């Protein structure tokens, strides 16, 4: 976080004396910014008023200057306490009253200094390394006996998202899900971001990866070619999916079907229901998807594009999977870890046609990552928002149409 903040209180007859506007003006004139919190205005002339002001500045020195300037006007710095920690009683068990994170940027106060919590995502705990003055968000399962875990809420602060400079659909940072809204401008904004991020990625800039988490409807609905093109053109840098997306993608390459339906014929083909099983079996026989692609068995498709482009793929299994394919992680905790390991550096997340993967990925994403959730079912983006990923822009549309439109906006010939 590149900003510093302090909370001050101002009380007394601060309204008629113009003391409150004077202090606020001072903060702004000196180059700081503020949020007014808990303003209470006295109901009678005798009753005092009070205000809590959160002051933000781009440097510690500027913040100190501002505080020094406003203190003579009665602004008193609220006494802040260091965060409290408790020891984890056993492996995988957090102390009672542990602090549960949000996915917003978070700081803890340690030895009278505010430090950033690394690896923030929602619903984790915060492990403190007092010796190195660092703090990290960790899932319950990764806690080890004796770890110092933040407890209570003292000395913890969550920083609201700053409105991004870009004036695009992500600038609102709020979920608005409606099937009745036009999609064109949203897709245009996504494409603009993706073009910019590809450039950033080529320059090795941080937070420039585009993550796509997708379900098999991408294949069924006809979005395979568009997604393949996006991967080949280096617009997608990480892929999260399950057994099915990979299986049907390769089924399409080997048999021209998706779950037994002929993709070009548009009807069930004889014994087509066996195709995905035969596909999985052949990949299991050769040992890995990568081997299938490099040997030439799989020539075309999303998986082939990922292997050729070196795009990491995390495949998380479920209890309804056939096979599964080699590389599918069937331990869901390990799958979560593998997904989490790919989150750093992500600058845009596209969650397409999968409730399961959309929610799982949403849980892992910090709120600062612009996110799009695309589904024909409006309940999916709504569910994602209800589970806390309020930054996600919801698009109620078919996966194939979405991917085709994005690819077209990025220059794919149609």
């Amino acid at each position, binding site marked *: 976080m590149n900003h510093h903040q302090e909370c001050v209180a101002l009380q007394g*007859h601060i309204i*008629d004396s*113009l*003391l409150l506007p004077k202090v606020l003006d001072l903060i702004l004139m000196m180059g700081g910014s503020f949020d007014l919190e808990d303003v209470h205005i006295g109901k009678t002339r005798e009753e005092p008023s009070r205000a809590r002001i959160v002051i933000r500045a781009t440097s510690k020195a500027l913040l100190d200057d501002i505080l020094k300037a406003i203190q003579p006007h009665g602004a008193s710095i609220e006494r802040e306490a260091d965060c409290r920690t408790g020891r984890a009683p056993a492996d995988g068990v957090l102390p009672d009253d542990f602090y549960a994170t949000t996915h917003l940027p978070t700081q803890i106060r340690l030895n009278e200094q505010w430090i950033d919590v690394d690896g923030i995502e929602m619903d984790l705990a915060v492990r403190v390394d007092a010796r190195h003055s660092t703090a990290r968000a960790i899932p319950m399962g990764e806690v080890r006996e004796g770890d110092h875990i933040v407890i209570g809420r003292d000395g913890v602060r969550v920083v609201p998202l700053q409105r991004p400079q870009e004036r695009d659909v992500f600038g609102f940072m709020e979920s608005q899900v409606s099937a009745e809204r036009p999609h064109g401008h949203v897709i245009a904004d996504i494409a603009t971001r993706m073009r910019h991020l590809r450039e950033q990625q080529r320059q090795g800039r941080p937070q420039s990866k585009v993550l796509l988490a997708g379900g098999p409807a991408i294949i069924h609905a006809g979005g395979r070619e568009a997604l393949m093109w996006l991967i080949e053109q280096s617009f997608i840098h990480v892929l999260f999916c399950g057994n099915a997306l990979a299986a049907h993608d390769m089924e399409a390459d080997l048999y021209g079907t998706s779950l037994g339906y002929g993709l070009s014929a548009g009807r069930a083909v004889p014994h087509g229901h066996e195709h995905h099983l035969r596909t999985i079996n052949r990949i299991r026989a050769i040992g890995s998807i990568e081997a299938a692609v490099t040997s030439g068995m799989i020539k075309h498709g999303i998986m082939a594009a990922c292997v050729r482009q070196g795009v990491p793929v995390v495949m998380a299994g479920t209890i309804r999977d056939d096979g599964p394919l080699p590389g599918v992680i069937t331990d869901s905790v390990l799958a979560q870890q593998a997904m989490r390991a790919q989150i750093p550096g992500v600058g845009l997340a596209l969650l397409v046609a999968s409730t399961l993967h959309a929610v799982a990925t949403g849980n892992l994403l910090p709120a600062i990552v612009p996110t799009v959730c695309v589904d024909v079912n409006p309940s999916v983006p709504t569910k994602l928002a209800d589970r806390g990923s309020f930054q996600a822009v919801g698009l109620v549309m078919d996966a194939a149409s979405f991917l085709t439109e994005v690819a077209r906006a990025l220059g794919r010939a149609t």
Partner: protein
Amino acid sequence: MSRLLVCPPDFFGIEYEINPWMRLSNRVDRQQAVRQWHELMRVFEQDLHVALERMTPVPGLPDLVFTANAGVVVGQTVVVSRFRYPERQREEVHFEAWFRARGYDVMLLQEGLYFEGAGDLLGFPDYWFGGYRQRSDIRVFPILSERFHREIIPLELVDDRFYHLDTCFCPLSGGELLYFPAAFDAYGQAAITERVPGELCFAAPEAEALNFACNAVCIGKHVVLPVGSPGTQTWLHDRGYTTHAVHLDEFMKSGGSAKCLTLALD
């Protein structure tokens, strides 16, 4: 009948410099100071029939004469001052002892919370104004406001020549206000004019403000002020006040005039 606390200038002089008026090189004519002080007392007692309570002067405390800074008296309660400068902090025990001996409820502020009495707290019956930044700490006003159930509007003093509110701000008994706007910033000026209608305000000309025309004592329809403020006196006359101009230039060498030399007891 009004009662004022005063202190004879037996030991008055300039022994240190804690405001822009004070110059060690600018010697006080002690005899002249004593004459001027007695003339001021004569006006109060004989012309205005004010009762005077005289404190015993203390050697080594030259500013004890400025009793406006003893504290502030509200009914039977006195808030004794906490002076910003160590030179005047030695006066605190003498003021406190005087009030205790006369049965006042003495309220003491925590150490380090500066408050210089009626020098920085003035007002009308319903609401008061508090001067801060130069001497008194703004944090004292919410405490006094709660204690006395009065609104206190803080005003920042931005010109160090007007280091106490009573050097540039004088509420009058008829609701009028005599003040020097440039001693306040734009926020303070706006806060003042928001409260006191323009026709009731008199902005003292700079020359008269620097002559401490605003350091005046208002008793009923009488105003006692230093000589040399004709514009202020004319305005006061127009408002129906009788003025009593007194030579107090020896005390101006210390940055004080009529108001600074008195403390209203009731």
